[in-house]
Protein backbone atom coordinates (compact mmCIF):
# COMPACT_ATOMS: atom_id res chain seq x y z
CA UNK A 1 0.00 0.00 0.00
CA UNK A 2 1.11 3.53 -0.75
CA UNK A 3 2.86 4.93 2.28
CA UNK A 4 1.33 8.43 1.87
CA UNK A 5 -2.12 6.84 2.23
CA UNK A 6 -0.94 5.08 5.40
CA UNK A 7 0.46 8.30 6.83
CA UNK A 8 -2.79 10.09 6.07
CA UNK A 9 -4.80 7.35 7.72
CA UNK A 10 -2.67 7.78 10.81
CA UNK A 11 -3.20 11.55 10.78
CA UNK A 12 -6.95 11.12 10.24
CA UNK A 13 -7.06 8.67 13.12
CA UNK A 14 -5.34 11.25 15.28
CA UNK A 15 -7.71 14.04 14.22
CA UNK A 16 -10.76 11.96 14.97
CA UNK A 17 -9.32 10.77 18.27
CA UNK A 18 -9.46 7.04 17.69
CA UNK A 19 -5.77 6.14 18.08
CA UNK A 20 -4.33 4.38 21.10
CA UNK A 21 -2.25 6.36 23.55
CA UNK A 22 1.11 5.39 22.08
CA UNK A 23 0.21 6.15 18.48
CA UNK A 24 -1.42 9.35 19.58
CA UNK A 25 1.79 10.59 21.17
CA UNK A 26 3.73 9.45 18.12
CA UNK A 27 1.49 11.41 15.74
CA UNK A 28 1.56 14.52 17.94
CA UNK A 29 5.37 14.50 17.60
CA UNK A 30 4.98 14.00 13.85
CA UNK A 31 2.66 17.01 13.61
CA UNK A 32 5.04 19.03 15.76
CA UNK A 33 8.04 18.31 13.50
CA UNK A 34 6.39 18.15 10.10
CA UNK A 35 4.42 21.17 8.86
CA UNK A 36 2.82 19.30 5.96
CA UNK A 37 1.46 16.70 8.36
CA UNK A 38 0.20 19.50 10.65
CA UNK A 39 -1.60 21.08 7.71
CA UNK A 40 -3.26 17.80 6.80
CA UNK A 41 -4.41 17.31 10.39
CA UNK A 42 -5.91 20.81 10.41
CA UNK A 43 -7.76 20.14 7.17
CA UNK A 44 -9.23 16.98 8.58
CA UNK A 45 -10.14 18.58 11.91
CA UNK A 46 -11.99 21.33 10.08
CA UNK A 47 -13.89 18.80 7.98
CA UNK A 48 -14.89 16.86 11.10
CA UNK A 49 -15.78 20.04 13.00
CA UNK A 50 -18.12 21.09 10.19
CA UNK A 51 -20.26 18.10 11.13
CA UNK A 52 -21.08 19.91 14.37
CA UNK A 53 -22.89 22.56 12.29
CA UNK A 54 -25.21 20.09 10.60
CA UNK A 55 -25.77 17.84 13.60
CA UNK A 56 -29.23 17.75 15.16
CA UNK A 57 -28.67 19.62 18.41
CA UNK A 58 -29.42 18.04 21.78
CA UNK A 59 -29.69 20.65 24.54
CA UNK A 60 -28.27 19.41 27.85
CA UNK A 61 -31.09 18.85 30.32
CA UNK A 62 -29.29 19.26 33.61
CA UNK A 63 -26.57 21.68 32.71
CA UNK A 64 -26.58 25.47 32.88
CA UNK A 65 -23.86 27.87 31.81
CA UNK A 66 -23.29 28.85 35.42
CA UNK A 67 -22.29 25.23 36.22
CA UNK A 68 -19.39 25.56 33.81
CA UNK A 69 -18.11 28.73 35.42
CA UNK A 70 -18.54 27.35 38.91
CA UNK A 71 -16.62 24.14 38.37
CA UNK A 72 -13.66 25.87 36.81
CA UNK A 73 -13.30 27.92 40.03
CA UNK A 74 -11.84 30.61 37.82
CA UNK A 75 -8.45 28.98 37.85
CA UNK A 76 -6.37 30.77 35.28
CA UNK A 77 -4.96 28.77 32.45
CA UNK A 78 -1.24 28.18 32.63
CA UNK A 79 0.70 28.17 29.40
CA UNK A 80 2.32 24.84 28.74
CA UNK A 81 6.06 25.29 28.96
CA UNK A 82 7.43 22.01 27.65
CA UNK A 83 9.46 21.92 24.44
CA UNK A 84 7.47 19.25 22.63
CA UNK A 85 4.78 16.61 23.24
CA UNK A 86 7.35 13.97 24.08
CA UNK A 87 9.14 16.03 26.73
CA UNK A 88 5.72 16.91 28.10
CA UNK A 89 5.46 13.20 28.76
CA UNK A 90 9.07 12.15 29.47
CA UNK A 91 10.68 15.26 30.89
CA UNK A 92 14.04 16.48 29.62
CA UNK A 93 15.06 14.31 26.68
CA UNK A 94 18.74 14.89 27.49
CA UNK A 95 18.33 12.91 30.71
CA UNK A 96 17.14 9.69 29.17
CA UNK A 97 18.46 6.52 30.67
CA UNK A 98 19.45 4.77 27.44
CA UNK A 99 19.79 1.01 27.36
CA UNK A 100 22.76 -0.42 25.44
CA UNK A 101 21.67 -2.90 22.75
CA UNK A 102 24.85 -3.26 20.71
CA UNK A 103 27.75 -1.02 19.80
CA UNK A 104 26.43 2.26 18.43
CA UNK A 105 22.78 1.36 19.09
CA UNK A 106 20.83 2.29 22.22
CA UNK A 107 17.16 2.31 22.99
CA UNK A 108 14.69 3.41 25.61
CA UNK A 109 11.29 1.77 26.04
CA UNK A 110 8.44 4.13 26.82
CA UNK A 111 6.19 2.78 29.57
CA UNK A 112 2.88 2.57 27.73
CA UNK A 113 0.10 0.26 28.72
CA UNK A 114 -0.83 -0.22 25.10
CA UNK A 115 -0.90 -2.83 22.36
CA UNK A 116 1.93 -1.10 20.55
CA UNK A 117 5.55 -0.98 21.69
CA UNK A 118 7.01 2.51 21.69
CA UNK A 119 10.68 3.25 21.99
CA UNK A 120 13.28 5.86 21.40
CA UNK A 121 16.24 4.69 19.37
CA UNK A 122 19.64 6.33 19.32
CA UNK A 123 22.07 5.32 16.60
CA UNK A 124 25.63 6.65 16.57
CA UNK A 125 27.01 8.26 13.39
CA UNK A 126 27.62 5.72 10.63
CA UNK A 127 26.20 2.74 12.57
CA UNK A 128 23.95 0.33 10.65
CA UNK A 129 21.07 -1.79 11.87
CA UNK A 130 21.37 -5.37 10.50
CA UNK A 131 19.08 -6.23 7.60
CA UNK A 132 15.64 -6.99 8.98
CA UNK A 133 11.97 -7.27 8.13
CA UNK A 134 8.85 -6.80 10.29
CA UNK A 135 6.07 -9.09 11.44
CA UNK A 136 3.66 -6.22 11.90
CA UNK A 137 3.90 -2.59 11.04
CA UNK A 138 6.70 -0.37 12.27
CA UNK A 139 6.48 3.42 12.25
CA UNK A 140 9.71 5.38 12.55
CA UNK A 141 9.88 9.13 13.06
CA UNK A 142 13.20 10.95 12.91
CA UNK A 143 13.52 13.32 15.89
CA UNK A 144 17.16 14.32 15.43
CA UNK A 145 19.77 13.71 12.74
CA UNK A 146 19.01 11.43 9.80
CA UNK A 147 19.32 7.90 8.46
CA UNK A 148 19.20 6.30 5.05
CA UNK A 149 18.34 2.86 3.74
CA UNK A 150 17.46 1.15 0.46
CA UNK A 151 14.37 3.35 0.14
CA UNK A 152 15.84 6.79 0.65
CA UNK A 153 17.07 9.34 3.16
CA UNK A 154 15.02 10.29 6.19
CA UNK A 155 15.57 13.60 7.97
CA UNK A 156 14.13 15.26 11.07
CA UNK A 157 10.33 15.14 10.85
CA UNK A 158 10.23 12.38 8.21
CA UNK A 159 8.29 9.20 8.88
CA UNK A 160 8.91 5.75 7.50
CA UNK A 161 6.34 2.96 7.65
CA UNK A 162 7.59 -0.62 7.32
CA UNK A 163 5.78 -3.93 7.09
CA UNK A 164 6.37 -7.59 6.15
CA UNK A 165 7.18 -6.72 2.55
CA UNK A 166 10.00 -4.39 3.45
CA UNK A 167 13.52 -5.57 4.21
CA UNK A 168 15.97 -2.85 5.01
CA UNK A 169 19.30 -1.98 6.55
CA UNK A 170 19.12 1.55 7.91
CA UNK A 171 22.37 3.46 8.49
CA UNK A 172 22.59 6.59 10.63
CA UNK A 173 24.15 9.66 9.04
CA UNK A 174 27.91 9.95 9.40
CA UNK A 175 27.62 13.46 10.74
CA UNK A 176 24.99 13.45 13.50
CA UNK A 177 23.76 9.88 13.84
CA UNK A 178 20.05 9.86 14.61
CA UNK A 179 17.43 9.68 17.31
CA UNK A 180 14.12 8.18 16.26
CA UNK A 181 10.79 7.44 17.86
CA UNK A 182 9.50 4.05 16.82
CA UNK A 183 6.26 2.15 17.23
CA UNK A 184 6.09 -1.54 16.48
CA UNK A 185 2.86 -3.44 16.29
CA UNK A 186 4.81 -6.70 16.39
CA UNK A 187 8.42 -7.75 16.82
CA UNK A 188 10.79 -7.32 13.92
CA UNK A 189 12.38 -10.30 12.15
CA UNK A 190 16.12 -10.24 11.50
CA UNK A 191 17.56 -11.79 8.35
CA UNK A 192 21.18 -12.48 7.34
CA UNK A 193 24.34 -13.61 9.06
CA UNK A 194 23.40 -12.77 12.67
CA UNK A 195 19.68 -12.96 11.99
CA UNK A 196 18.96 -16.13 13.92
CA UNK A 197 20.89 -14.92 17.00
CA UNK A 198 19.11 -11.57 17.00
CA UNK A 199 15.72 -13.26 16.52
CA UNK A 200 16.50 -15.54 19.46
CA UNK A 201 17.47 -12.53 21.59
CA UNK A 202 14.23 -10.76 20.65
CA UNK A 203 12.35 -13.94 21.54
CA UNK A 204 14.08 -14.23 24.95
CA UNK A 205 13.60 -10.50 25.59
CA UNK A 206 9.87 -10.86 25.03
CA UNK A 207 9.67 -12.86 28.30
CA UNK A 208 10.98 -9.89 30.27
CA UNK A 209 8.66 -7.27 28.81
Amino acid at each position, binding site marked *: MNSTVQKNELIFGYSSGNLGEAKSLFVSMYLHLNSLAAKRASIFENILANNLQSLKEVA*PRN*LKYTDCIKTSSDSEYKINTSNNPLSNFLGDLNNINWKFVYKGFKEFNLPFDDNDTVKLIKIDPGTSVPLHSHNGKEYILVLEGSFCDEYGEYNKGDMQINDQKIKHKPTASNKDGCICLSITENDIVFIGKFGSVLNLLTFIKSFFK
Partner: protein
Amino acid sequence: MENTKIVNLIKKIAEERDERAFSEIFDFIAPKINAYYIKNNLSSEQAEELTQEVLSTIWIKAKLFNPEKSKFITWSFTIARNKRIDFYRKSKKSNANEDDIRDFLYENNKVNDYEIETIINKISEELDQNQQKLIKMSFFEQKSHKKIADELEIPLGTVKSRIRATLNKMQKFL
Protein backbone atom coordinates in the same frame (compact mmCIF):
# COMPACT_ATOMS: atom_id res chain seq x y z
CA MET B 1 -24.23 32.42 14.86
CA GLU B 2 -22.07 34.72 12.78
CA ASN B 3 -18.34 34.47 13.11
CA THR B 4 -17.80 38.15 14.01
CA LYS B 5 -20.34 37.82 16.81
CA ILE B 6 -18.65 34.70 18.17
CA VAL B 7 -15.25 36.38 18.06
CA ASN B 8 -16.65 39.36 19.97
CA LEU B 9 -18.22 37.16 22.63
CA ILE B 10 -15.02 35.16 23.14
CA LYS B 11 -13.07 38.38 23.44
CA LYS B 12 -15.46 39.58 26.14
CA ILE B 13 -15.08 36.29 27.99
CA ALA B 14 -11.30 36.40 27.75
CA GLU B 15 -10.79 40.03 28.66
CA GLU B 16 -13.74 40.94 30.87
CA ARG B 17 -14.78 37.53 32.21
CA ASP B 18 -18.23 38.47 30.88
CA GLU B 19 -20.72 35.83 32.07
CA ARG B 20 -23.50 37.05 29.78
CA ALA B 21 -21.28 36.62 26.76
CA PHE B 22 -20.45 33.14 28.05
CA SER B 23 -24.14 32.26 28.37
CA GLU B 24 -24.60 33.07 24.66
CA ILE B 25 -21.63 30.94 23.70
CA PHE B 26 -23.03 28.18 25.91
CA ASP B 27 -26.42 28.31 24.15
CA PHE B 28 -24.70 28.16 20.78
CA ILE B 29 -22.15 25.41 21.32
CA ALA B 30 -23.31 23.23 24.27
CA PRO B 31 -26.20 21.54 22.35
CA LYS B 32 -23.80 20.73 19.50
CA ILE B 33 -21.11 19.29 21.77
CA ASN B 34 -23.70 17.33 23.73
CA ALA B 35 -25.12 15.91 20.48
CA TYR B 36 -21.58 14.95 19.39
CA TYR B 37 -21.09 12.89 22.56
CA ILE B 38 -24.48 11.22 22.21
CA LYS B 39 -23.62 10.35 18.58
CA ASN B 40 -20.39 8.87 19.98
CA ASN B 41 -22.51 6.46 21.97
CA LEU B 42 -22.13 8.01 25.41
CA SER B 43 -25.06 7.99 27.83
CA SER B 44 -26.87 11.30 28.30
CA GLU B 45 -25.31 11.64 31.79
CA GLN B 46 -21.79 11.07 30.47
CA ALA B 47 -22.47 13.38 27.51
CA GLU B 48 -23.55 16.20 29.80
CA GLU B 49 -20.64 15.64 32.13
CA LEU B 50 -18.18 15.95 29.26
CA THR B 51 -20.08 18.90 27.76
CA GLN B 52 -19.64 20.63 31.10
CA GLU B 53 -15.88 19.97 30.97
CA VAL B 54 -15.66 21.36 27.43
CA LEU B 55 -17.56 24.52 28.32
CA SER B 56 -15.46 24.99 31.47
CA THR B 57 -12.37 24.69 29.30
CA ILE B 58 -13.74 27.30 26.88
CA TRP B 59 -14.33 29.61 29.87
CA ILE B 60 -10.83 29.07 31.26
CA LYS B 61 -8.91 29.03 28.00
CA ALA B 62 -10.81 31.74 26.11
CA LYS B 63 -7.60 33.76 26.09
CA LEU B 64 -5.82 31.01 24.21
CA PHE B 65 -8.28 31.08 21.31
CA ASN B 66 -6.82 32.92 18.35
CA PRO B 67 -9.64 34.09 16.01
CA GLU B 68 -7.21 35.01 13.25
CA LYS B 69 -5.88 31.50 13.14
CA SER B 70 -8.81 29.26 14.02
CA LYS B 71 -12.48 28.85 13.62
CA PHE B 72 -14.33 28.66 16.91
CA ILE B 73 -16.25 25.57 15.82
CA THR B 74 -13.00 23.71 15.01
CA TRP B 75 -11.36 24.84 18.23
CA SER B 76 -14.38 23.61 20.21
CA PHE B 77 -14.47 20.34 18.32
CA THR B 78 -10.85 19.57 19.19
CA ILE B 79 -11.48 20.34 22.87
CA ALA B 80 -14.49 18.00 22.81
CA ARG B 81 -12.48 15.31 21.06
CA ASN B 82 -9.66 15.56 23.61
CA LYS B 83 -12.08 15.30 26.52
CA ARG B 84 -13.52 12.17 24.97
CA ILE B 85 -10.04 10.66 24.59
CA ASP B 86 -9.15 11.49 28.21
CA PHE B 87 -12.49 10.10 29.36
CA TYR B 88 -11.72 6.70 27.83
CA ARG B 89 -8.19 6.75 29.19
CA LYS B 90 -9.35 7.43 32.73
CA SER B 91 -10.13 3.76 33.15
CA LYS B 92 -6.49 2.92 32.41
CA LYS B 93 -3.34 4.12 34.05
CA SER B 94 -2.69 7.01 31.76
CA ASN B 95 0.55 8.81 31.03
CA ALA B 96 -0.12 11.65 28.71
CA ASN B 97 -2.82 14.27 28.98
CA GLU B 98 -4.27 14.79 25.51
CA ASP B 99 -5.49 18.26 26.35
CA ASP B 100 -2.00 19.43 27.37
CA ILE B 101 -0.42 18.01 24.24
CA ARG B 102 -3.09 19.51 22.06
CA ASP B 103 -2.61 22.94 23.69
CA PHE B 104 1.07 22.73 22.95
CA LEU B 105 0.45 21.85 19.30
CA TYR B 106 -2.18 24.59 19.03
CA GLU B 107 0.17 27.26 20.30
CA ASN B 108 2.91 26.17 17.93
CA ASN B 109 0.82 25.31 14.88
CA LYS B 110 1.31 27.74 12.03
CA VAL B 111 -1.60 26.46 9.97
CA ASN B 112 -4.39 28.98 9.52
CA ASP B 113 -7.94 27.58 9.28
CA TYR B 114 -8.93 30.37 6.90
CA GLU B 115 -6.05 29.70 4.53
CA ILE B 116 -6.96 26.04 4.14
CA GLU B 117 -10.65 26.79 3.61
CA THR B 118 -10.40 26.54 -0.19
CA ILE B 119 -8.94 23.05 0.11
CA ILE B 120 -11.69 22.01 2.51
CA ASN B 121 -14.38 23.36 0.16
CA LYS B 122 -12.83 21.53 -2.78
CA ILE B 123 -12.82 18.29 -0.81
CA SER B 124 -16.47 18.62 0.17
CA GLU B 125 -17.41 19.41 -3.45
CA GLU B 126 -15.48 16.39 -4.65
CA LEU B 127 -16.99 13.88 -2.20
CA ASP B 128 -20.51 12.71 -2.91
CA GLN B 129 -23.10 12.44 -0.15
CA ASN B 130 -22.42 8.78 0.53
CA GLN B 131 -18.71 9.41 0.93
CA GLN B 132 -19.30 12.34 3.27
CA LYS B 133 -21.64 10.15 5.28
CA LEU B 134 -18.97 7.43 5.55
CA ILE B 135 -16.37 9.92 6.78
CA LYS B 136 -18.87 11.24 9.30
CA MET B 137 -19.84 7.80 10.59
CA SER B 138 -16.31 6.48 10.77
CA PHE B 139 -14.30 9.49 11.98
CA PHE B 140 -16.83 11.79 13.63
CA GLU B 141 -19.17 9.29 15.25
CA GLN B 142 -16.39 6.68 15.72
CA LYS B 143 -18.56 3.85 14.50
CA SER B 144 -16.84 0.55 13.83
CA HIS B 145 -16.76 -0.70 10.25
CA LYS B 146 -19.02 -3.54 11.37
CA LYS B 147 -21.62 -1.13 12.76
CA ILE B 148 -21.49 1.00 9.61
CA ALA B 149 -22.01 -2.14 7.50
CA ASP B 150 -25.05 -3.10 9.60
CA GLU B 151 -26.58 0.37 9.47
CA LEU B 152 -26.08 0.89 5.76
CA GLU B 153 -26.89 -2.77 5.02
CA ILE B 154 -23.79 -3.28 2.90
CA PRO B 155 -21.02 -5.92 3.28
CA LEU B 156 -18.16 -5.19 5.70
CA GLY B 157 -15.59 -5.43 2.88
CA THR B 158 -17.46 -2.78 0.93
CA VAL B 159 -17.33 -0.40 3.92
CA LYS B 160 -13.57 -0.83 4.17
CA SER B 161 -12.96 -0.38 0.46
CA ARG B 162 -15.27 2.64 0.23
CA ILE B 163 -13.57 4.39 3.16
CA ARG B 164 -10.18 3.72 1.60
CA ALA B 165 -11.43 5.02 -1.78
CA THR B 166 -12.78 8.16 -0.10
CA LEU B 167 -9.48 8.83 1.66
CA ASN B 168 -7.69 8.27 -1.64
CA LYS B 169 -9.95 10.79 -3.31
CA MET B 170 -9.22 13.35 -0.58
CA GLN B 171 -5.52 12.73 -0.99
CA LYS B 172 -5.40 14.68 -4.24
CA PHE B 173 -6.13 17.87 -2.33
CA LEU B 174 -3.85 17.36 0.64
